[in-house]
């Protein structure tokens, strides 16, 4: 179940659209945690995640007057979170550009994630072993339930790009899980 999927009542949304700060704060209270967790998992760093939450909610409150249904507010906030996170990853050059053959250059683990202390059987740590882009795609698809079309749009790529990155990310993650399991068995 997507972590964002909490309904916000229409009155609160309308109040926020009229500039009511209390309503905006209520929306922040609902979505700050899923936003922070998705950003943390995608970026692999709490400090970067904090900046992403900040930038996301600056956009949310400045653009909420433009929000229109029928899509729920949580999907809209999640989209802004994902786009903001991808922008941050691009700015930090954690997402490598595609080469001429359309293949993604795989850069293992970003600098911040590398500095995180190792914790045995820590799922987040294992996830951080993936390249930033692969990590983002697997989280967007397998955790948030986003479609390949949505993922492709967020990265400005095709659906086959999303499918290909997901396939390789799962394969890498599975290999990491196996290696981690073997290490645990040895101990």
């Amino acid at each position, binding site marked *: 179940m997507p972590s964002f999927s909490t309904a916000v009542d229409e009155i609160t949304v309308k109040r926020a659209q009229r500039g009511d700060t209390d309503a905006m704060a209520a929306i922040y209270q609902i979505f700050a945690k899923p936003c922070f967790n998705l950003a943390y998992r995608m970026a692999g760093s709490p400090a970067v995640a904090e900046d992403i939450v900040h930038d996301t909610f600056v956009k949310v409150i400045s653009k909420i007057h433009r929000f229109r249904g029928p899509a729920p507010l949580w999907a809209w906030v999640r989209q802004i979170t994902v786009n903001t996170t991808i922008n941050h990853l691009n700015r930090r050059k954690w997402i490598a550009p595609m080469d001429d053959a359309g293949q993604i250059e795989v850069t293992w683990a970003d600098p911040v994630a590398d500095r995180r202390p190792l914790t045995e059987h820590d799922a987040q740590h294992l996830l951080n072993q993936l390249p930033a882009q692969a990590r983002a795609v697997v989280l967007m698809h397998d955790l948030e339930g986003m479609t390949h079309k949505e993922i492709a749009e967020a990265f400005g790529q095709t659906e086959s790009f999303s499918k290909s990155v997901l396939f390789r990310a*799962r394969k890498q993650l599975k290999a990491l899980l196996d290696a981690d399991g073997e290490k645990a068995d040895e101990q």
Partner: protein
Amino acid sequence: MSNDADPRLTQWLAQLPEHDPPPQIWMRVLETRLAEQSTRTRRSRLIAGGALAATLAMSIALGLVLTQQPTPAQPPTVTIQAVPQLAALMRRTEQLEQALRQQQEHFVQLASTQQQLVRSQQAQLIALDQALADAYARNLPEAQLARLWQRRVDLMADLVSIYDTAPGAGSI
């Protein structure tokens, strides 16, 4: 390529630790929002002020041109030669004002030295508009009016070039 995740992976992802965001983020969001709003208000005032000054100067100039329709006492050659020059300068200043408005609407971020320069140019612009209004009130010769209008064109061009050279202005 299978679209189904390995159940172990799904379970893994479900076990990812949950973190609470640091409490200070919302305050930072509000501060940023407030800063953006005050910047926008300041810009709107500057645009409105500039537009008002230009409209005032244009109205005075137009009024003068209309009241100076050829009369038997006036040599027609002076009006024919001088008014087009003034009109061209007025048109140019209007074009530059439009360019400046577009730049300001794109919220180009200026460096602090550029902001100081903009403030100084705007102060000069206000003084110049006052001088123009005085010149029309005193019915000064068109050559003098042209000099003032030329000065206004130069000031506006300087302002536009400040925004043109601002960091990130190229992305507009």
